[in-house]
């Protein structure tokens, strides 16, 4: 698993496009929204949590369709399926690599973009915490979607449609944590739900994704 994780990181860095693509997209969203909405600081501050979370979510989605598709096309997935590594482990390793390449940079960049969007001072810490807790779920859910569509040519559109509804709870609770944190309200419940979704996804979806890959390899 470690070898696969390290290989995926190496590939992401070498391929150029994979690493930083999500981050660049996130940056664009966060910079363009103030230009579109106008310079009213109060309005921006109110929509900042939602915009940051939607941006992070779409940035995550952007690189997902390549998660298994590249390995499928060059035959690596066949070989991994016959390797001693269980497919569930393959899914976990690849989802983790995806998170490190896509999710983690978003978490680190979010506070800077919070300034652009005039996020209330109380919200920064909880923006980082909520993204840190929530983005692993985005990677694992996305891995499941990518596994379902792995054999399809141009499966990206179908994958987006499949994955987006599953992203909704994470988005709602994630943005809620930031909104309440920024407003100085109690956010405990939302944060717990966000964590629960992530843990549930981590526990269940690798098995579902591995089953989907097995079907698609036939």
């Amino acid at each position: 698993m470690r070898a696969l994780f390290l290989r995926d990181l190496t590939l992401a860095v070498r391929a150029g496009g994979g690493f930083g693509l999500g981050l660049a997209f996130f940056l664009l969203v966060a910079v363009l929204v103030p230009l579109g909405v106008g310079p009213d600081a109060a309005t921006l501050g109110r929509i900042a949590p939602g915009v940051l979370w939607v941006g992070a979510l779409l940035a995550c989605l952007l690189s997902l369709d390549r998660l298994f598709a590249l390995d499928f096309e060059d035959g690596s997935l066949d070989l991994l399926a016959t390797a001693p590594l269980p497919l569930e482990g393959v899914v976990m390793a690849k989802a983790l690599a995806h998170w490190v390449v896509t999710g983690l940079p978003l978490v680190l960049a979010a506070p800077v973009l919070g300034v652009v969007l005039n996020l209330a001072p109380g919200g920064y810490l909880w923006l980082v915490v909520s993204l840190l807790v929530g983005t692993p779920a985005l990677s694992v859910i996305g891995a499941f979607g990518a596994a379902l569509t792995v054999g399809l040519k141009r499966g990206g559109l179908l994958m987006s449609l499949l994955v987006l509804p599953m992203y909704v709870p994470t988005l709602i609770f994630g943005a809620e944590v930031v909104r309440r944190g920024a407003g100085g309200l109690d956010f405990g419940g939302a944060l717990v739900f966000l964590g629960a979704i992530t843990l549930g996804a981590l526990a269940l979806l690798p098995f579902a994704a591995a089953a989907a890959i097995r079907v698609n390899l036939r």
Partner: protein
Amino acid sequence: MELRIDNLACARGGVTVLEGISFGLSPGQAMVLRGPNGVGKTTLLRTVSGLQPGVAGGVSLPPESLAYAGHADGVKATLTVAENLNFWAAVHGLRDIGPALLAMNLTALRDRRAGNLSAGQRRRLGLARLMVTGRPVWLLDEPTVSLDAGSVALFATMLRGHLAGGGAALIATHIDLGLHEAQVLDLTPFIARSTPEGAFDEAFA
């Protein structure tokens, strides 16, 4: 370590293509699968490797003893030759890629990016991967595609070494590898004639 295939039937796209295949493969033995294009050589190999379920019959062999090499080599273009091999060695819990590089004459290319290799060199890298799996039973689907005569001989030598070490190989190929000791199985007599019951459901499975 023995591969035993018992009355196996396999399907592609929901249609049964081969049925009633039975044979065994002991350590040190190789078997060459022959038959015209589309007869089901790849389907049979994928079924034996467990990538797809058989329609009927069974494949029995010890777990974790298969190494499959299909049409695609599983080579990453942005990794070097050595990195590609090291990855597969690590996945299979082995360390030393030296013998594999040597066997397929890749030592001079070890730091070359796989994306810059020629088709034949890529194939050699794909075949060298078999050696770092440490698995005894090799399932090879047209292993000699895009190899020149010298590389085919190199591959035959590697295969002989594998067989001499107690390995076994099931090979789908059209060209003569020079393996005179290998048994030959022509798949033409096993082409499925009847449409088995449940084929309708199978199409929707």
